[in-house]
């Protein structure tokens, strides 16, 4: 399970994905929304590679409860970040006056 080759695989995958994301952003290779989707995909795959190859989160008998705990936490992350962001974006939309000299809402 935990082998030199496994750690190396996780390292190479995560590094290549981060280099790709950095290259895409610094060269402005794509339109903004496509660029955002591309770097989000890079982050997602890099995290999956790290969680699988480094933290050994899998469905083997030895690690299944670590995996269950992580899966149980995922909705909490989504609620904490997603709902907070949604709540404040709606709040700004409805309450922020446009102040002269201030950048507008997006």
């Amino acid at each position, binding site marked *: 399970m*935990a*082998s*030199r080759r496994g*750690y*190396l695989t*996780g*390292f190479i995958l*995560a*590094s290549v994905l*981060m*280099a790709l*994301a*950095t290259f895409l*952003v*610094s060269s*402005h290779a794509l339109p*903004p929304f496509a*660029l*955002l989707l591309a*770097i*989000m995909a*890079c*982050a997602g795959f*890099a*995290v999956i590679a*790290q*969680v699988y190859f*480094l*933290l050994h989160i899998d469905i083997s008998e*030895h690690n299944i*409860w*670590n995996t269950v*705990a*992580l899966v149980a*936490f995922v909705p*909490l*992350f989504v609620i*904490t*970040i997603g709902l*907070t*962001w949604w709540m*404040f*974006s709606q709040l*700004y939309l409805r309450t*922020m006056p446009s102040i002269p*000299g*201030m*950048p*507008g*809402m*997006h």
Partner: protein
Amino acid sequence: MSHAETVVDPDKVRLWSEDYDGHDVISTRTFGFWMYVLSDAMLFATLFAAYGVLSYPHSYYTGPTPAQFVTPWYTFTQTMALFLSVLIYGWAMTSLKEGNKSGVINGLLGALVLGVLFLALDIHDVMRLIAAGITPEVSGGLSAFYCLTQVHAAHIFAGLIWIVVMLWQVARKGVTEDVVGRLISLRMFWQFQAVMWVFIYVFVYLWGYMS
């Protein structure tokens, strides 16, 4: 008669296993530490939420935004320092499996040096920003930026202290059960910092730079 209506005889019901289920000390502690790691991830989730609601154009109050001060390739060297540190720590753990004590110590030393490099690059970057007048009190957006990135740096600092302690313990006490358990916990802590760094690097530095 359904299962729910079955009369239970309290004298005969078996509420728990009387057999030893094989929960050794290390795996119990490791699972407990994984619970801590996940709760630490919740702490980061709240900081990401705060950054999310404080990274609108109006959050910077006409002051500098990450698009003006983030240098992607400089921060990429931080990424590589941390990823290499985590890789070498992982190799120290495979040396531990092989019973190679000097491999463990060399791996911990390598992880320590690269972790110090990560922190030095971070401090250098912060000094550059402060010298340019880009400080946390300038705007809410910058407060959230500094809070998220420097809480991560504080975790790295704590991890470095822990690595020094484990170096001393491995050298002094040898590979005892307690030391092995602590090395496994530190492995999870250190790898978790790399996972959090992926999110910070992509969603704070890179996204901030492009928007």
